[in-house]
């Protein structure tokens, strides 16, 4: 393994910014996503960036990319085992639905309306709802 030998030795203090700072690995990826009612929806399996194309030169002074959506679903498998799911199979949680980020990512919408919860809905409607007692609180 060739070790990098050009690591900069003197580091400057980063410029101050006008908002909270999030490091993706530390504060977003693999966090639990909870809907507006407090129901767990999924985890943040990946993040989609808007405003930058892979391997295309970035023109000087271009606007910084922004998070367009949190991703979930098959993307977890490819993140673990490699490869990339086709864009059509990505399940998106649009960033404009996110209401807060702390030790969980909270949404401002109900999970019922999200495509991210279709498996849960399918299992619920095809199996769990049909077993007697599934709709009631435990006694």
């Amino acid at each position, binding site marked *: 393994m060739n070790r990098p030998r050009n*690591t900069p030795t003197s580091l400057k203090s980063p410029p101050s910014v006008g908002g909270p700072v999030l490091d993706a690995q530390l504060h977003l990826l693999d966090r639990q996503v909870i809907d507006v009612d407090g129901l767990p929806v999924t985890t943040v399996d990946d993040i989609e960036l808007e405003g930058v194309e892979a391997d295309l030169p970035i023109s000087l002074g271009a606007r910084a990319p922004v998070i367009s959506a949190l991703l979930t679903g098959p993307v977890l498998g490819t993140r673990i085992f490699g490869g990339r799911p086709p864009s059509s199979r990505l399940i998106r949680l649009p960033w404009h639905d996110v209401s807060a980020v702390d030790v969980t990512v909270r949404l401002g919408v109900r999970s019922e309306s999200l495509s991210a919860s279709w498996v849960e809905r399918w299992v619920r409607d095809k199996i769990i709802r049909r077993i007697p007692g599934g709709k009631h609180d435990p006694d």
Partner: protein
Amino acid sequence: MILTDVLGSRVLNSEGDLLGRVADARFVLDQPPGQLLAGARLQGLIVSPHSAGSFMGYERNDVTRPWPIAQILKWWHRGSFLVLWEDIEIMGPETVRLREGFTAYHPGLQGAGPGQAPQR
């Protein structure tokens, strides 16, 4: 593009020398709000000369416990630095190339991060 494509990419300077690998991406919530929360702008990338995985971020915060795990991981990521978006020329799943004369910044985070433990 997808973020984890970039994580782990090799980071080169303009002459093509290897500087390390992308350990993390830093965002700032300072964009015009969508509906509920400010938009998240990519501020830059954290580059680690020693390993691709950002292992728990001890190099970026002031957490020193549990000893000795915190110290070992901090040492493992010694030499990490932050490069800003303005200094990135190309970003891809294999390599990230920086512009000539890029600036390396301290990767440190102020405080413990965005979220404090919620009081339930």
